[in-house]
């Protein structure tokens, strides 16, 4: 049963997933382009750090995009066909959802392998300046965890009804509008700031997306 689910999910997601995997492989490789050569020592180290900081933003964005892509493709066809396939199976909903979830986790391995290979290749080919270290394994772990987390978040939202997704979006919009109204009324209450702080705190649900995403760092 799992193989069938995995195979259908792969069929639905393979093209964008392939693109995402190639992107995951390419970002670390591109980030070290121009690093090394006969640049001046010291100046080089700062340039490398600056280059890594410029590329750092793309890793979490890609992880989130992959999570979203896999979650949407996992549930999309079911929603469109009114769950006829799922209802024809002798399974309770939670088992069916778990199979879809498990298939998504397996498919996440592709971009994870992509970023691992890209990071290792980039670290091996770049001249890492004295004082800096390459972190291919740490970056791969961070990326994989972020992609898994993003996938589960979007999977939970996509698995619900359109109404549930609407509620989530409406809650976010209400928060932003509330923040704007308080701002217009010059009431000094920051609603969004503390919330974001808690979300991105290391214990928070989005903590893994914060911090530094540097292939080469101090």
């Amino acid at each position, binding site marked *: 049963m799992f193989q069938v689910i995995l195979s259908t999910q792969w069929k639905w997601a393979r093209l964008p997933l392939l693109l995402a995997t190639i992107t995951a492989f390419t970002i670390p490789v591109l980030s070290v382009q121009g690093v090394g050569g006969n640049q001046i020592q010291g100046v080089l180290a700062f340039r490398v750090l600056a280059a890594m900081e410029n590329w750092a933003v793309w890793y979490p964005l890609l992880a989130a995009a992959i999570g979203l892509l896999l979650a949407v493709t996992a549930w999309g066809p079911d929603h469109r066909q009114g769950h006829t396939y799922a209802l024809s199976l002798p399974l309770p909903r939670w088992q069916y959802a778990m199979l879809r979830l498990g298939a998504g986790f397996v498919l996440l391995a592709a971009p994870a392998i992509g970023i691992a290979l890209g990071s290792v290749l980039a670290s091996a080919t770049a001249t890492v300046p004295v004082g800096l270290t390459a972190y291919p394994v740490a970056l791969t772990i961070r990326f994989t965890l972020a992609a898994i987390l993003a996938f589960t978040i979007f999977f939970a939202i996509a698995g619900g009804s359109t109404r549930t997704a609407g509620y989530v979006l409406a809650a976010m919009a209400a928060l932003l509008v509330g923040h704007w109204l308080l701002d217009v009324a010059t009431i000094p209450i920051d609603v969004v700031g503390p919330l974001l702080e808690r979300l991105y705190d290391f*214990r928070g649900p989005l903590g893994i997306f914060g911090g530094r995403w*540097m292939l080469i760092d101090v």
Partner: protein
Amino acid sequence: MRRLTLGTLALTAAGVLLPRTVQAQTVEELRARVVQFEQQWNEANELARRVDAALLPKLHVDTMAIGPIVLVAIGDDLTLIRDAADGALQRLSDHLGSDIDLLQGVEIYALAREHTVGLGLTSGMEQSRSFILFEETKAADLAGSLVHTALEALDLTQDRGFRDWLTVRTLTLLSAVDFVRAYESLATSPFEASSKCLLGELGGCRLALGLTETSEPLLTWYSEADRRTLVENSGRPLERFFPNMATMYDRCVEGDDESCSTFMKDQSIQPPLPPNVRVTLVQHALVVGGDGAYGRLYRARGTMEERLTAAARVPGDSLIASWRAVLVDSAGHPTAVSWPLGLAAVFWAMAFSAMALRSTRWR
């Protein structure tokens, strides 16, 4: 200008009323007309004053105390400055402790007009600063600037040696990020002394920080390879305009150390580690020294190391070793995923998965 215009209008109006043919007037009549003109002038003047008062916002002047500091505030609305003064006092008290008395006699001027606040020190303290205050600027931001200005006044009381070594204008309140940046500077410095310091050699730290007193900083703080790096970093001069310097540059790059020294002889030689690292050492000495450290730092004389050890009340070796440890700890391995962070991510992934599985309804 407005007054002049109104006065002229009044006089013109009076002139229109004059008879076209000149008639003989008695002295009494002339006096009466003078009195009338005077009255019209005064009325026009009063009207002009009212218009001026209506058009210009009222400026308030207030003198406030931020602990021992006198803050003279001038502006149309001083509410923000008053709130900021309270915040500044709190921050200065936290930062300086009992040493806040060092700020005795410091006067700061604050001028608030529309969306701009300018802060300045009294004459004699040549440095002053101003900044644009946007509508969303809060009292806390202005308090930070007041604290900075106050500490600037404190630094200006110091001798040239201290200020030249520190280079940065003011000993600001450093955050954890500043220590991470300082570690980055230490870790990426291309100079031998810095590398030794990173590996824990205290002598290397002294050289890299410029704590070793010398009349030949280029020869003392920098190795032969470092001098070549310094010259390389400064770039090759244009041969057309500086043929001798270009030749010296080439010789230095090829390995002639004397050419490197000659090339650098007219340049100001700074310690291998940049000012943002040196300032963390001062901050660390102040933290280690606790209450009264600021006072001891500013009252002490002698070499920079003597001043810092006086502030910290620990021997130089201990101070430098603990500073290095703090710097290295501050950076950690920022890209690596710590156990708590990894476990939190796994926990949330499981929580969201459970949410997705929980429902029994197809929708």
